[in-house]
């Protein structure tokens, strides 16, 4: 098997330069590529176009990149759990394109599956439809939405092997597999990097062919955004 291991986040993101379009997996703060984000902050790369369902919070996730003014544009479905985000948006420093969550996911999948465009009814009759081609199938209107074209995809998996195969844990899966398929270069950080053969082929969520670089991350904080609990009796 092909060995795709790099030493760490710094090496993995070495060629992400200013102005690149990058996808970042995760839903809220769940399943985000923490190590890659830290490395991008450290590197100080600028003018990034970030495709990610959310934009982090003030002091975590993509919020860390926003604070350092590294993001030119966010393409997301839900943002603004984040005061700095709001400030930059209102001041015009930051551009935001809001798209329906399912459209976001499916435009990733389209890229990974080599489909240049897909049809979805989400947004028909709303401002999301403005300027888009509408097409009727079986009496129902659909918008034609294009596959994303991203230079890099940064994803976080639970386990991965040196051949790039990935396994996700629970709902931290979310956008990670579809983004892993969609990047021209896909970088995976994993909590546990294992030898090829240690992952059951039937349990692999993302086949290694989609992953170009992989490394075992460290110091995962895995912050919880809304800690909701019940008490025992």
């Amino acid at each position, binding site marked *: 098997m092909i060995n795709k291991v790099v030493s760490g986040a710094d090496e993995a993101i070495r060629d992400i330069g200013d102005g690149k379009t990058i996808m970042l997996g995760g839903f809220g703060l769940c399943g985000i590529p923490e190590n890659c984000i830290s490395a991008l902050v450290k590197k100080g790369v600028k003018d990034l176009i970030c495709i990610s369902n959310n934009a982090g919070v003030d002091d975590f996730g993509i919020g860390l990149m926003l604070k350092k003014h590294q993001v030119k544009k966010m393409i997301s479905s839900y943002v603004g759990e984040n005061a700095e985000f709001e400030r930059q948006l209102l001041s015009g420093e930051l551009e935001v394109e809001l798209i329906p969550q399912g459209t976001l996911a499916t435009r990733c999948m389209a890229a990974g599956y080599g489909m240049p465009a897909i049809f979805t009814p989400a947004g*028909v009759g709303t401002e999301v439809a403005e300027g888009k081609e509408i097409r009727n199938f079986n009496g129902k209107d659909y918008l034609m939405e294009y596959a994303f074209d991203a230079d890099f995809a940064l994803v976080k998996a639970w386990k991965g092997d040196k051949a790039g195969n990935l396994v996700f844990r629970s*709902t931290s899966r979310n956008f990670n597999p579809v983004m892993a398929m969609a990047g021209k270069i896909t970088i995976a950080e994993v909590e546990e990097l294992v030898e090829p053969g240690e992952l059951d082929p039937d349990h692999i969520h993302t086949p290694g062919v989609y992953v170009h670089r992989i490394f075992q991350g460290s110091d995962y904080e895995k*912050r919880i955004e809304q800690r909701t609990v019940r008490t025992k009796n």
Partner: protein
Amino acid sequence: MLDKNGIAKRIAKEIRDGYYVNLGIGIPTLVANYIPEGINVVLQSENGLLGMGPFPFEGEEDADLINAGKQTITTLAGSSIFDSAMSFGMIRSQKIDLTILGAMEVSENGDIANWKIPGKMVKGMGGAMDLVASAKNIIVAMQHVNKAGESKLLTQCSLPLTGVNCIKKVVTELAVLDILPEGGFKLLERAPGVSVDYIKQATSGKLVVADDVPEMILD
């Protein structure tokens, strides 16, 4: 007049055995607490889970296991996890029997506005546009009037739309109303102690009232 839990309780009565249900944030989330005994439902969370369980016990939170509201939750026996594309795939292909969500405005032809107020910071539509565009059965849970005392059941929505011609039923603190295929809110039930006249005054869109409008039965 119902409180939020009352609205949730009334909506819970719409749920049939075997339903797959997607619950939005706010009042819809409360519906889970009132699902009648003997009724098996599976809750979908659009971040990638079927079979959402209750909140974890204190100390048992798992950062990798959250719902679409980013709250820590649990799985149940029979739960399944999937990615975001499949999650919206099953929504788009109408495998979810019922969607319950909140709204800022609903119009008499079933349009809904619930994501954007011009001039205010816009957080985004999240999965709402996908849900309303595809769900075969959508119930809106909301207050009948807004904080300024204006009706949220309108002839036409004034706010930017989330979806058109998609809402089938509205449950508020005052009433249960169906949206008629030809347009108009058909008053089905009054909240306990609420008069038809009161509902008429609180409804700006076309209200269709039969001779006899029963009071809700909540238990």
